[in-house]
């Protein structure tokens, strides 16, 4: 534990030195780069929590930049083997039992993904927190013991984003997306996202648990747990193809 704190402090010193005079956009860019890496490969567990029940979905995912991503469902049994592929702005779903590749239209991208509080879009990161928004630094605030930059993000007019406004708290020391508030077009708070459990994964320390809570629904949330993830692995663009979608395991 001491070691971890020391490491965080060292990181803090390092990042602080670099972070002087960063613009809001640069901070978001750093947070996005850190979260995404140039490429990544990981396994995740998503738990949909409701007052009376919960359901768990496990998956493997691969990504390269913001243009390519591939997600393979590994549980529950009835959905196992389904694959979601994103190439640039297009997305496909492979259903192995019937040998069918279904092209997912944009309206479906914003729909809840597999019954969770996440959308298809959240999952494959179709929209970008860097490119699709204008950013404004509102100052610094402490959130759950962490010093954070508070940044307001307004979607650009032609961006395919569901939100009217997003407020993001990014940690000063680690550039982690620590808390996020999602507002609709009427400026009503819809969802709150919180990150927890900073752990060493691959080559970096990142929050490994993200909880997304709809504001007006009590006892309801979706937890995304990162079981393991590696960044900057060597993976070719050709990996993200309709052919590989059917072969991935």
């Amino acid at each position: 534990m001491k070691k971890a704190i020391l490491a965080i402090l060292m990181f803090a010193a390092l990042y602080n030195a670099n972070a002087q005079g960063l613009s809001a956009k640069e901070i978001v860019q750093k947070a996005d780069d850190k979260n995404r890496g140039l490429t990544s490969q990981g396994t995740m567990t998503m738990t949909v929590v409701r007052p009376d029940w919960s359901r768990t979905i496990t998956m493997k995912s691969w990504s390269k930049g913001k243009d390519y991503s591939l997600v393979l469902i590994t549980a529950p049994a009835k959905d196992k083997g389904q694959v979601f592929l994103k190439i640039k702005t297009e997305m496909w779903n492979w259903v192995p039992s019937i040998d069918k590749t279904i092209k997912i239209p944009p309206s479906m991208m914003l729909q809840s993904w597999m019954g969770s509080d996440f959308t298809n879009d959240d999952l494959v990161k179709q929209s970008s927190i860097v490119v699709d928004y204008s950013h404004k630094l509102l100052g610094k605030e402490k959130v759950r013991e962490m010093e954070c930059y508070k940044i307001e993000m307004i979607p650009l007019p032609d961006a395919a984003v569901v939100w009217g406004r997003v407020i993001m708290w990014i940690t000063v020391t680690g550039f982690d997306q620590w808390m996020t508030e999602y507002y609709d077009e009427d400026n009503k708070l819809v969802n709150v996202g919180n990150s927890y459990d900073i752990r060493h994964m691959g080559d970096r320390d990142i929050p490994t648990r993200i909880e997304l809570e709809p504001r007006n629904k009590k006892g309801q949330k979706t937890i995304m747990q990162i079981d393991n993830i590696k960044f900057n692995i060597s993976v070719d663009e050709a990996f993200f193809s309709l052919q590989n979608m059917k072969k991935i395991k």
Partner: protein
Amino acid sequence: MPGTSRYILLLLIILLMTVDCIARGSAREQNDTLDAAHSRDNAVTPSADSSAVIKEKNWSFNGYVKDMQTVIIHKIDGPWVTDNLIHNRNNFKWNISKSFTFCLEERNRFYWGDIMAISPQYADFIAYDNGLVNMSWNIVSGKSYVFNIAIDRVWLDYTHEKFQVTLGRQRINWSQTFVWNPNDIFNTYSYFDFDYEEKPGSDAVRFQYFTSPSSKAEIAVKADKDRKITAAGLYRFNHWKYDFQGIAGVYTQSDLVLGIGWAGQIAKGGFKGEMSFFQPLKNFLDTTAVFLSSIEYDYTFRNSIFIQFEGFYNSNATNSANVLINQFNPGLLNAKNPFLNGFSIFANISYPVTPLISIALAGIYNPSNLMYFILPSFTVSLMNNLDLSLIAQSFQSYDPAIYGSCQTSIFIRLKGSF
């Protein structure tokens, strides 16, 4: 003849395995060098195999057990016909090597109930297999029951870079739309046969060559029960954010088939379509082609309400009076006449009330035959791997000639997946 075809199959398998061994032998040296380089930086090679990072077992086994109770009602006061189906499916997949994959999927079905006694041909109908090799067997049957074992997928796949060949019973799915699929010339299925989730397969050899991440060329050859050959090619590519495809070939040695299909979007909703022409090869110039076309639009609203419309046109004038029987009899289903003739319209609305409960209401209307279908459904997830469904199919008509055969079927299904 059956002997000969089996030998050819065997020879092909041996040939593919030999090619693979040679390819692997020559690739081994290269890989050794690559592995050394990759182990330095935790790299993943751009292949489907992620074993460089996570060690996986090279086989998988899954499936389900279902119990479905059916009640068929002609008249509410008349006798109701009931039957029950206990259905187990087992899917086995073995990743033999980086290039070879083997798949075997089989289903075990035990039917019992009144329907067996009412229609004596029911057992034959369950045993029906349209493939070159019969792989469906009624193990035991009596007046009120039948137990069937059937294999509907058994194939060996060989992949080398962008080339892939699959040999054996497999599903060759060229469809794009939801209900009616004019481009699905290899293994026609019926939308009404909802309980057969995997849909039938074909005894075929299929060559695929992936020309880019989102395009491919394909050639498939299948032989059916009557040893009739269907052979066709497909080219699929992606442009303007649409998937387009063209198909051409010969259908059951009797028709030239040409078709196109697409999947894209209009106003953020899905816009898909398929069209096919079947021109009889006999008296090629004197006969009129059969034209099938389906066009679909779907849209998902922010509140998760999903709506879907599909229009279908079938120029085939062959009598469609037995549509209901045809729809459930795989022996009568064919790609050239998949549904009632004339125009049909399908509309569907579905809504996930909670992530566990989903309700849907679909309808089909065919004015040329004065028929309509009402198809409500309700599904609830009881546990992570246990689902309960309540589904109804009501078939109605204004036509006095077929009014008598109107009926409503109600299905209650419990499904446990493993």
